[in-house]
């Protein structure tokens, strides 16, 4: 069985729901590429995701502790050493009928990265992980949010980024 054609499926789905203008997915002919500059065993690796991972809190109404987040626009960061059991995802845009987001590492593999660092496969896990909220605007993502992620990665001395969309 072949992979799901999400572009076709979502276009048809939302047309049937009465949306007239189909969403135009980003499309480029030129794709930038940077080769690895040093061995992974010496590289600092950052995790970047759209999985809406947040830090749990018992005290706040919405169940999340925003004090860690350093939110700017649609970009926020969470220290990479926060215990896994304090992390959860509020993301709703996934296949809720078929799977769950109960295992954070299945979409935000922070424990796995720490294990890779412990094993020496990668040099280190960057001090912060970064989350990007879906902005509905490709212009805004490209002009505001993506440069903010870059800025934070540069600040943390990141050599490699692992990206997990949901």
């Amino acid at each position: 069985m072949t992979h799901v054609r999400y572009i076709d499926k979502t276009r048809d789905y939302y047309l049937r729901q009465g949306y007239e203008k189909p969403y135009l997915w980003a499309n480029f002919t030129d794709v930038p590429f940077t080769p690895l500059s040093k061995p992974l065993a010496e590289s600092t690796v950052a995790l970047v995701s759209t999985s809406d991972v947040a830090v749990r809190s018992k005290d706040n109404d919405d169940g999340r502790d925003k004090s860690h987040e350093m939110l700017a626009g649609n970009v926020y960061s969470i220290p990479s050493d926060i215990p896994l059991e304090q992390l959860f995802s509020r993301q709703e845009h996934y296949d809720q009928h078929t799977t769950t987001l109960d295992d954070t590492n299945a979409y935000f593999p922070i424990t796995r990265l720490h294990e890779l660092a412990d094993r020496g496969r990668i040099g280190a896990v960057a001090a912060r992980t970064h989350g990007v909220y879906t902005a509905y605007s490709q212009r805004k993502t490209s002009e505001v949010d993506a440069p903010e992620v870059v800025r934070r990665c540069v600040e943390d001395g990141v050599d490699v980024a692992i990206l997990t969309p949901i």
Partner: protein
Amino acid sequence: MSLVARALEEAGIPTVVFGTALDIVEHCGVARHVFLDFPLGNPVGRPFDVTMQHEVLELGLGLLESASSARASVEAPFVWGEDTSWKELIFSDERPFLEGEAYDNWMEAKKKYREQKVADSQ
């Protein structure tokens, strides 16, 4: 997410995207892509399957080490299960993508975005 990958690559930081929507990532185009043919939500492997998650991640690390040009990609050799009906049913009338509160939240987010767009243009 692919747009963020582009910006990082342009800034000299190599990236690898782990995704479950092959066509969307390839339509945008990224430097390196590990595709896992799983339902939306688990791009790094089956929940609680530590071994599989490491195997999927290792495919990405391998791409980082081996790729010499953009659009390098590999498909992880795992299947979700014998029942493949989720592939047919996702985004079908029979099985709406967002229902109830999730749908309301999405509409609310869209409304906020429209308002922000108006505010930005003034």
